[in-house]
């Protein structure tokens, strides 16, 4: 049967729609002209200016501190949560699953304001610490889902075999389960890290004054007088994202 060409054409248009603004952004990051309209010549000057920007480095440092610590905390909590959800089928786990699932579907702004009000009520000083708490909270759910998906695709015979060969519960856990689960845990951690590094809305609410992370810095550049150095910064961030996605895809693929 002959297929209609329409779905194909719309798909290609959607691809153009998805990539056109990004491609123009990349081209402009090498454009000598200050305005994107005309390409007046190739230049590295926006990259040079970006590297000389001290505020950007300070924001990057804060983002990395939060990203690493929130990834560490959420990976540990999320892996334990996934093991609990997978292994036990009690009423407690039903409530546990609900708690893990809900942060994934509520709009960011609700989570941001809820945490802000909570910190204000408890008189907790806003800053890097409150951002860490907020990031760990939303990353936890994503890590749990990724590790749980890995557990659900898991060949149970391996554990049975280990037990038949005389391994005790701890040995099974330490020498079979954790190594098999490692790609899932690493993929979860990478996802948590990208989410933390990229989060703007929730961070903006709980940051208070002075705790300028990279997205908050980018936001204020976009909002108040943008210079082409954001194009340069955007391209660098895109490249980093591609590397992380590629690494995650590779890790998740080798399960077969």
């Amino acid at each position, binding site marked *: 049967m002959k297929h209609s060409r329409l779905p194909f054409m719309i798909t290609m248009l959607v691809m153009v729609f998805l990539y056109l603004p990004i491609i123009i952004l990349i081209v402009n990051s090498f454009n000598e002209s200050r305005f994107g309209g005309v390409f007046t010549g190739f230049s590295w000057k926006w990259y040079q200016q970006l590297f000389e920007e001290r505020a950007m480095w300070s924001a990057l440092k804060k983002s990395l501190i939060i990203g690493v610590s929130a990834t560490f905390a959420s990976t540990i909590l999320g892996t334990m949560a996934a093991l609990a959800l997978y292994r036990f089928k009690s009423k407690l786990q039903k409530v546990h699953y609900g708690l893990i699932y809900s942060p994934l579907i509520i709009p960011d702004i609700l989570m941001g304001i809820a945490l802000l009000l909570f910190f204000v009520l408890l008189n907790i000083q806003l800053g890097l610490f409150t951002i860490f708490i907020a990031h760990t909270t939303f990353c936890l759910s994503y890590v749990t889902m990724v590790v749980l998906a890995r557990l659900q695709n898991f060949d149970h015979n391996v554990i049975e075999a280990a037990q038949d060969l005389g391994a005790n519960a701890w040995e099974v856990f330490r020498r079979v389960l954790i190594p098999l689960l490692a790609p899932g845990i690493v993929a979860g951690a990478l996802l948590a890290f990208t989410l933390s590094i990229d989060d*703007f809305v929730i961070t903006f609410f709980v940051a208070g004054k002075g705790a300028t992370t990279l997205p908050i810095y980018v936001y204020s550049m976009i909002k108040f007088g943008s210079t082409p150095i954001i194009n340069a910064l955007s391209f660098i961030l895109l490249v980093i994202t591609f590397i992380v996605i590629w690494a995650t895809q590779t890790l998740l693929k080798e399960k077969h």
Partner: protein
Amino acid sequence: MKERIKFLKDRIEIYITLPSFGWLFVFFLIPTLVVFGIAFKPVNAYGGVKPGWTFDTILSLADFNYFTLMVRTLWLSFLTTVGSLALALPVGYYLARSKPRLRSLLLLMIIVPFWSSFLIRIFAWKSFLHPEGTFKQVLVFFHLVNAETPLLYNSGAVLLVMIYTYLPFGILPIYAAASKFNFHLIEAAMDLGATRLYAFCKIFIPGIRKGLITAMVMVFVPAVGAYVIPDLVGGTQNEMIGNKIAQRTLIDRNLPQASALSALLALVVIVPMGMIAIMQSRSKKLKLEAHSKE
């Protein structure tokens, strides 16, 4: 079925459940409940809340300005959902029918922008639509728009960027459902004399109904709560409820007002999410019933 091998002892359950359970209880559940509580608290002069309870804040929501804000938010979210699904349906259909290698390449291409920085994608559109930007100049060159027509800071720009941002949330569930759809049904319908469009609407769309509803919720929920997009590419005439919440919190420092608006937003979001939950539990029940009959 053979009983699952127990690799963790029963008494361990509480130790591995408690850390994440406790964390989310303290930093997610309690703060969410606090939002509803603060809406009933009087505001003090220092941007905090006073002891005592009041209905004034909730009653102040019954204001014409809030009404238009809410209508605008729902209307823009509705249009975003319709626009995203109108594109996601043919894309999902095409992905499900394409060859595996092309399909995984296209899927990756859809996921990549979805993982890249949200702010940067908005910025890309902002510079794209900018008066000195490429797109505007192309349009002016072909006399499609007047040089004075602004492409930015209007509801059209908000809608465009929202569709751009949330489109992958629409494509992925539709593709997931379409990849399980039996395409012979469409051929059968066409052999029996149905037109292609008729078969698409009457066979394909009902066949992927669950994916379609998931896609709707996945697009609608973040769209209703959108704040950064109307803030950066919309004008003051295109504010959504998210902007008002941020303004009341970060600029006016009226936390009870912000809470009341957030509670309203939460209610708007809970309805479609409840729909999905009911649907999922129903299909799970059906699966279980089918299983027990075997």
